[in-house]
């Protein structure tokens, strides 16, 4: 009888265990599908495209990839037009990120002071970065139009048509793209700087004021070092985005005139799609860009760690 009464709860417990999964099984059930999706959608394409970068292959040619070693890499690196694309990307990244950093930080310093309507103005300044880059490209194209665009009207109010056609000249076209990117992404840098500025404890400034530190000294020794980590993160994000820049240029200049605003991403797009479908070389170029981004990111991260004293 005792044995029977002991057996009953054990069976019930087992049945309950069957009905309810263990924590481990539940964890595995959540992790495995994600893992499978991750492998299928991220890891496999990553390694497959690496393999393709060493082959002669066109995705539409109905022919198997043919192993050619480093030929795609040497072909890309020995072609002047690709170096031109890299140079264009570098100039663009340097100008746009540089200007965004200076303007974004300056704006944050201004908006740090609380005044009537400062919250509303801060929200307004964020609008450009909420827009789609393609849409921004399209309407700035209208703004730059020498016949009816407002930009040339500001340059030459008496006869806007006589002002420079911003998108038709190789130098001004790059400047035009940089202006739009700065307009669009300065608020992002400002936002990060503003959060950094707001996090600086007041007692640091109070102590500095007691020591009769000048405003410049306070800025150099308190504000800048305190904001630097967040500013650097903003610069890192913007640099990576600038190196990948594609949609804004495509909407605004299509990479022209000639190749004057053709960034490496546009060159990559044209190689991979747009009638060429040179999948092997496009994969190789994508890996070159990836390596460059990793190298630049590492420099930033090392400097960031240095700032944090790690």
């Amino acid at each position, binding site marked *: 009888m005792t044995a029977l009464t002991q057996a009953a709860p054990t069976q019930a417990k087992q049945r309950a265990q069957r009905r309810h999964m263990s924590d481990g099984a539940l964890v595995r059930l959540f992790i495995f599908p994600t893992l499978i999706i991750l492998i299928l959608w991220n890891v496999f394409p990553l390694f497959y495209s690496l393999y393709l970068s060493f082959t002669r292959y066109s995705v539409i040619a109905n022919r198997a990839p043919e192993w050619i070693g480093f030929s795609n890499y040497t072909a890309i690196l020995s072609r002047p*037009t690709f170096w031109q694309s890299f140079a264009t990307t570098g100039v663009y990244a340097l100008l746009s990120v540089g200007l965004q950093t200076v303007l974004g930080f300056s704006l944050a310093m201004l908006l740090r002071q609380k005044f009537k309507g400062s919250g509303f103005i801060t929200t307004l300044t964020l609008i450009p970065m909420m827009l789609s880059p393609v849409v921004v490209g399209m309407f700035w194209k209208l703004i730059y139009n020498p*016949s009816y665009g407002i930009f040339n009207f500001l340059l030459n109010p008496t006869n806007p048509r006589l002002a420079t056609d911003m998108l038709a*000249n190789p130098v001004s076209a790059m400047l035009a793209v940089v202006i739009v990117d700065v307009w669009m992404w300065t608020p992002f840098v400002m936002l990060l700087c503003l959060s950094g500025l707001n996090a600086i404890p007041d007692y640091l400034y109070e102590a500095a004021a007691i020591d009769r530190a000048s405003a410049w000294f306070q800025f150099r020794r308190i504000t800048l070092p305190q904001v630097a980590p967040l500013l650097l993160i903003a610069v890192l994000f913007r640099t990576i985005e600038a190196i990948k820049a594609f949609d804004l240029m495509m909407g605004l200049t*299509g*990479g022209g005139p*000639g190749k004057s605003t053709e960034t490496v991403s546009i060159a990559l797009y044209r190689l991979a799609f747009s009638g060429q479908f040179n999948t092997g070389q496009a994969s190789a170029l994508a890996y070159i860009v990836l390596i460059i981004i990793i190298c630049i990111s590492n420099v930033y991260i090392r400097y960031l760690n240095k700032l944090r004293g790690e």
Partner: protein
Amino acid sequence: MFKKSLFLLAIIALVVASVFVGSPARAAVTELKIIWAQWAPADFLQTLVQDYETKTGIKVTVIQEPWGTFGDRVAAEWAANGDAFDMVIGDSQWLGQGATQGHYVELTEFMTARGIEKTVTPATLQYYGEYPPGSGKYWAYPTEGDANGWAYRMDLFNDPAEKEAFKAQYGRDLGIPETWDELLEVAKFFTRPDKGLYGAAIYTQIDYDAIVMGFQNVFFSYGGDWYDENFNMEGVLNSEGAVKALELYRELYTCCSPPGLSNAFFQETNDAFTSGQAAMIMNYFAFFPALANSATNRFAESTGYFSMPKGPDGLRFAALGGQGISINAYINDERKQASFDFIEWFAQDDVQLKWAQLGGYTCNIEVLNSQAFLDVAPFNAAFAETMTFVKDFTNIPEYGAMLPIAQSALHSYVVGGQGTAKEALDNIIAEWTPILQDAGYIQ
């Protein structure tokens, strides 16, 4: 428990696999899908195919993809050996890829057995249907014939004061230009920036093929060509005539093009015309219906049309646009047969006449020569004349790698003003040479 979760995963995998692997049993074809670019002729075709549905019960859907992504969407389907569409009305330049890479079904036997190849003009059959050139192998039925032409403001050209001023300045009557030099003179005459009027709007867009197409009109007429029959480019692509042609094209852009047209294609040139900025515009005939419509063009009543002018030696060419209809090689045999049947119906003279009446640009000889066709639209006479001297960019499978190089070099010189015309053409040769060497066309 681990076994249990594995079992659950196996069930999920089975369900997913059944979705992807499972295929419905083959049934009689009740619907055909044609993919084409998103533009007015595709709407006309969608209207026309209702007759086919009435006759056969087979519904035909014209899938319209915006021009910017049309090529990529078709290529993605080719890459996947997909059957999302039964037929494609593809660009003439795709023929090489479609034929040699196995994306198109060969139509030679079908077209010759039914005499279809004799119903269309030889030039359209050559450029829209045949690959390799001169081989007699056909891969597409010429569907939408198109080429570059000109629209002009008749009110300006017929204004007595303008006529008098032009004669005083150039010593000849103001009229439709017969040579490229005359066109340049007329464009300069009408360029008056202080009044917001410019002589000519031309293609300058760097994407895909716009500036190449625009330049080809002058280039071929000046005796230039991309290469000779042996794929030699030196002295052909950069010949004296070719250099002069490119210089003229740039002059046309710098002297007489409305501001802001540094990246212009069909929409931009039409806009320049309808806004009253341009006295003449270059465009594909397929985009002229918007100019003939008073709802979209306030100058519609006084808009005239003319064919491409001649070069200095009397040569006359117009860059070819337009497309042919091909059958997707990745559909099943039933759908292929249904597609053959559809093309056979579409190629009939009476259907082609209706196609033309709806606004489509037929390549059918009978219809093109009929008065009924000429009466359909004010620009049809110029179109019919143009279709006798059309010429296309290369359609070898390597065109995709060659086209952006030419686009970029031409855009750099014409719009960017970088280097000389000779340097721009030399750059094209330098960059095309390894491509043609790799493909085995030249040593």
